[in-house]
């Protein structure tokens, strides 16, 4: 009585004989080949991107070598190019953005995960995630016409509160490192909030209950138990925000003031890597000029890849969701 078993494999073979399609393992082979070639295309494109950046910056790399990173002269007329002012502007604005956005973001994430009722928390998170969808050029638009005039107006207040710091000296131009840092802070805030909230929600309830059972107040259990438990993931979200801030172009270009100088004061105008590429790439004349700008792109690429890698590693170890 083994007939059913014996007959079953016969059915596909009849169909297989019928057409070319079935000859290829019922289409499995071509499907596999098509999908794997698309996957391979992605690998290829990414490698090609690195290769193109590398090859097209050759002229500048050969001429300046490592000095490119440490020279503070940017003089297209004389053919002298150095990355330092732009690296400085990029790093300073991103750092300022984090100084503002991290306390705000982590605070808001704590509220959303620990305090707010689920309904309220979901609604607010939805709104915050919408904020992440706002295109950067629109942040730029608001920064130019709303934020900069506003900062100019509250300048006396800023000066009286922060004026004792060496980083808030000299005249305030409105279009400055400071304005760029503030708009960047607003732009990275949603990333910090939504990822930190998720990481905090992933902390087991036992942890909270144990702390509360020991007599801790809600804040004590949150700050001394829940937050340390989620520390790695929160740090990851901060690094992710940092990577965003470093590579952000439009909003920064519109308010940073576009002046390739290194000044200690945040009130002074500056320049960032992304901003100079955006402003000068189409106007660049000559191989050396273009290739210097592409080398700046390479520097920016290396910087963000590094930071992104750290971020993903940190988030991956705390939640199962490393991609964003």
């Amino acid at each position, binding site marked *: 009585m083994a007939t059913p078993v014996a007959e079953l494999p016969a059915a596909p073979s009849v169909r297989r004989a019928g057409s070319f399609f079935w000859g290829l393992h019922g289409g499995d082979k071509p499907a596999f080949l098509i*999908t794997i070639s698309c*996957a391979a295309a*992605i*690998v290829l494109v990414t490698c090609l991107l690195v290769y193109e950046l590398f090859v097209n910056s050759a002229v500048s790399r050969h001429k300046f070598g490592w000095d490119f990173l440490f020279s503070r002269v940017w003089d297209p007329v004389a053919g002298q190019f150095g990355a330092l002012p732009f690296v400085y502007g990029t790093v300073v604005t991103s750092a300022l953005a984090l100084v503002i956005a991290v306390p705000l973001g982590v605070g808001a994430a704590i509220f959303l995960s620990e305090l707010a009722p689920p309904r309220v928390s979901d609604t607010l998170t939805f709104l*915050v995630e*919408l904020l992440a969808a706002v295109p950067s050029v629109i942040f730029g638009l608001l920064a130019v016409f709303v934020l900069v005039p506003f900062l100019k107006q509250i300048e006396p207040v800023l000066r009286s509160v922060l004026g004792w710091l060496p980083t808030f000296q000299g005249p305030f131009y409105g279009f400055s490192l400071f304005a760029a840092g503030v708009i960047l802070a607003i732009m990275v805030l949603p990333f910090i909030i939504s990822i930190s909230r998720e990481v905090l929600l992933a902390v087991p309830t036992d942890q909270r209950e144990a702390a509360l059972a020991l007599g801790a107040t809600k804040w004590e259990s949150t700050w001394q138990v829940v937050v340390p438990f989620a520390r790695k993931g929160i740090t990851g979200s901060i690094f992710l925000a940092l990577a965003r801030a470093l590579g952000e*172009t439009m909003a920064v270009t519109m308010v940073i003031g576009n002046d390739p100088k290194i000044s200690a004061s945040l009130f002074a105008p500056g320049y960032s890597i992304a901003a100079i590429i955006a402003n000068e790439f189409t106007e660049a004349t000559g191989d050396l000029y273009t290739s210097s700008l592409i080398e700046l792109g390479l520097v920016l690429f290396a910087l963000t890849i590094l930071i992104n890698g750290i971020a993903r590693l940190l988030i991956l170890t705390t939640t199962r969701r490393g991609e964003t």
Partner: protein
Amino acid sequence: MDRLLIRRKAVNAVMLGLTGLCALIAVGVLVFIVGYLFYSGGSSLNWNFFTKLPTPVGESGGGMANAILGSAKVLLLASLIGVPIGFLGGVYLAEFGGTTFPFVVRYMTDLLNGVPSIVIGIFAFTLIVLPQKHFSTLAGGMALGLMMIPISLRSTEEFLRAVPVSMREGAMALGATKTRAIVTVVVPAAMQGIVTGIMLNLARVAGETAPLLFTSFGNRFWSPGWGQPTATLPVMIFTYAIAPYEDWHRQAWSAGFVLLSLVFAVNVIARLALSRGGHQRR
């Protein structure tokens, strides 16, 4: 002892209040942005914006009809490049896969996703604009298409993985080949999620400006075909906002209003559809 308790309770109340304040500020910023854009953009929006070409400097009026069409064309090209590659790559990762190669693919995808948009612009420039020696709609579409690949791949993979194994087994038990099971059972089951993922992805790249600056460049007139520079909404907002003309600023606000409305509409619809569909993920 009692004093200490009071202090602890006070700290508790103050700190918890502060976290609430943080959340309020974050949401307040959003409300302000939307409100301000509606107020300044909506009030200066008129029919000419959608139907007229930009006027020469100094002449008021005119619109951004060419930029709206240009954005649509660039986005169409971008989806033609980004969606199929991302989708099929996602199918590979979720359905076929192996051990080493999928790891490489995922790693490279994450890498590509983390590349700053301005660097993608440089890449498209060296790849297409440099050999062709002119800016084009094609180059712009290529740049945005590259940006779409990682997210469409990851969202496709995620939604395919959410389809229960039993459905695949059911299809195969009925005699379907693996491919047939994927095409007729697994992908349709994940379709809603995949489509919303693609919509969100499209909304994200629709506002990208940096990669278009030196690929599709800009154009004061219509751009027939795919081989010429074209105006796009985000680039128009940028150029108009930093120009010193009052009338241009007004139009930049209108364009920002239109762009943000589109992006928000897609986001709200997509997210509602996702939460209705019973998926917990984005």
